[in-house]
């Protein structure tokens, strides 16, 4: 069982069971303190807002808000095809402050996507997945975990907007499940498996509900915890890598890795804690303010025979919608559905490329944890182009697609349809 041992060693690399037991500070074994560095291996640089922008922390705070508001909504929502829409409507209009819970949940979901992407950008532009000068670092594991969390975030957003069973949710789910169907060979079977039938109905709604409220958040909590923990075991933020390190993890001489005296370093914990509290409060306040000033009206109830015209997905999926609408291609006598090309192949390739980036990066160790290092110029440009393309597609589809998916300038008036 050598493979298994090697694999499990990799997953917890950097963690030494014996040393952990022997550690003199008891608090080090407490879960929360484990996340917040009390060890003597933290530098001022890794607290710096300028470096990390605290984006990961912000995402974690938003996720907490989502869990709380989600739980509140679970007590009012009925996952049934007949009643789902009306229970959401009740939540919005009948329960005092129900609108606030619902809108805060939705705004936070949007914010979570935005900040997850920003966090991805930060990590990419600073090359934080690199090994740098450290020996016992596996930055790529956390990079991959991060990509998984990005996928989980989008999956939660998608399943979440199906639940109200309104026009947008219903037709979004129709298109989503037909993208599954467009996979060659296994597509039909897979769609049947997901739907529990041939049509979108009760079986599908309750599955999506269970996945949205339990499976996905649970996985997210697990992977966020692992993400934090890995970061600690990798020796904290990647930015330390550029400091001259002589003593490897050793604190015997009273010197810390960062070259500070032990006591001096320990005093830092309150500073970090203070920052965490400030970031959490600011994020929460921001989300609440947005909720108060941005109104997100409820759609019309689902009409299974008539989609809205144009039927647009929520903004974070618009780029995919534009792709599936324009990538149907002919190969010889075969026509390949754009749903497969634009909805599966292209996003799949993008994710694969992202996941493999750490392995093809051959910039020098000095480029680790530095914003826009010269040696990574080409990667950064490629990344920026892809990101801008996606953002442009979103704006294009939002403003320039009218009834029957015809191109209109944003200032043109759409003709009457239906």
């Amino acid at each position, binding site marked *: 069982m050598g493979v298994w041992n090697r694999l499990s060693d990799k997953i917890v690399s950097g963690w030494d069971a014996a040393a952990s037991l022997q550690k003199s500070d008891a608090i080090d074994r407490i879960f929360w303190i484990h996340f917040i560095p009390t060890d003597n291996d933290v530098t001022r640089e890794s607290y710096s807002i300028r470096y990390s922008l605290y984006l990961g922390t912000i995402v974690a705070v938003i996720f907490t808000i989502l869990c709380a508001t989600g739980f509140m909504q679970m007590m009012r929502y009925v996952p049934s095809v007949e009643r789902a829409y009306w229970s959401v409507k009740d939540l919005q209009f009948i329960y005092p402050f129900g609108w606030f819970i619902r809108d805060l949940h939705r705004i936070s979901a949007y914010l979570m996507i935005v900040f997850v992407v920003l966090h991805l950008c930060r990590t990419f532009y600073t090359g934080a997945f690199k090994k740098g000068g450290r020996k016992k670092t596996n930055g790529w594991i956390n990079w991959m975990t991060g990509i998984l969390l990005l996928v989980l975030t989008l999956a939660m957003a998608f399943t979440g907007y199906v639940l109200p069973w309104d026009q947008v949710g219903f037709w979004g789910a129709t*298109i989503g499940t037909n993208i599954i169907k467009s996979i060659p060979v296994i597509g039909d079977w897979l769609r049947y498996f997901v739907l*529990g*039938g041939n049509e979108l*109905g*009760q079986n599908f709604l309750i599955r999506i509900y269970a996945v949205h409220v339990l499976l996905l958040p649970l996985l997210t909590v697990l992977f966020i915890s692992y993400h934090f923990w890995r970061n600690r075991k990798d020796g904290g933020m990647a930015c330390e890598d550029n400091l001259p390190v002589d003593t490897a993890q050793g604190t015997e001489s009273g010197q810390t890795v960062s070259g500070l005296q032990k006591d001096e370093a320990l005093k830092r914990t309150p500073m970090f804690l203070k920052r965490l509290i400030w970031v959490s409060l600011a994020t929460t306040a921001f989300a609440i303010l947005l909720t108060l000033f941005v109104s997100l009206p409820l759609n019309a109830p689902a009409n*299974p025979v008539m989609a809205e015209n*144009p039927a647009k997905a929520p903004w974070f999926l618009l780029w995919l919608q534009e792709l*599936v*609408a324009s990538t*149907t291609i002919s190969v010889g006598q075969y026509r390949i559905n754009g749903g497969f090309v634009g909805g599966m192949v292209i996003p799949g390739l993008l994710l694969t490329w992202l996941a493999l980036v750490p392995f093809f990066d051959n910039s020098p160790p000095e480029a680790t944890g530095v914003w826009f290092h010269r040696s990574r110029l080409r990667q950064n440009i490629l990344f920026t182009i892809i990101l801008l393309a996606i953002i442009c597609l979103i704006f294009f589809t939002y403003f320039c697609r009218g009834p029957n998916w015809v191109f209109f300038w944003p200032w043109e008036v759409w003709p009457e349809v239906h």
Partner: protein
Amino acid sequence: MKTVKRRNFLKIFASIGIFGTMAGQTAYALVKSFFPKARYEPPQRFKVGSAYQFTDGPNFLAKHRIFVIKEGNKFHALSSVCTHLGCNVTFNKLAKTKNVTVRGKEIEEKWEFNCACHGSKFYGDGTPYTGPAPTPLPAYEVSVSAVDRKLIVDKNIVVDSGQRFTV
């Protein structure tokens, strides 16, 4: 090269066999449990009504998501589910008839089908001509019930779009 003793080989073989079977059964049951044995959905083969109840041209049946198309005493049925990603296509009566060549044949058409979701357009016989839809709207078999002379559409049987059922 490392040699494997017969006893060890058999041990490995047996444990893979036993645990493999257990895992396989679990996986099978798990996947299978997601497929209900009965579906509360409209059936795939159903009666759509008597011939005289239909008006000339496409008649949309929302429950089954098909068009029953009447041309005099000839009938055929087309799916209303867009072959791109499953939105519902609507029919569009043309102000004046249009002659188009579809798959080498010249046909005269009085209506066309449009999909709102990503702008696919279909000729009167269901063949797509613009937009992302990759294949034609399928035509389903039409027959008549021997009992009450009502028309029957069977979604399990896809027929050529040129086929007509005469009453």
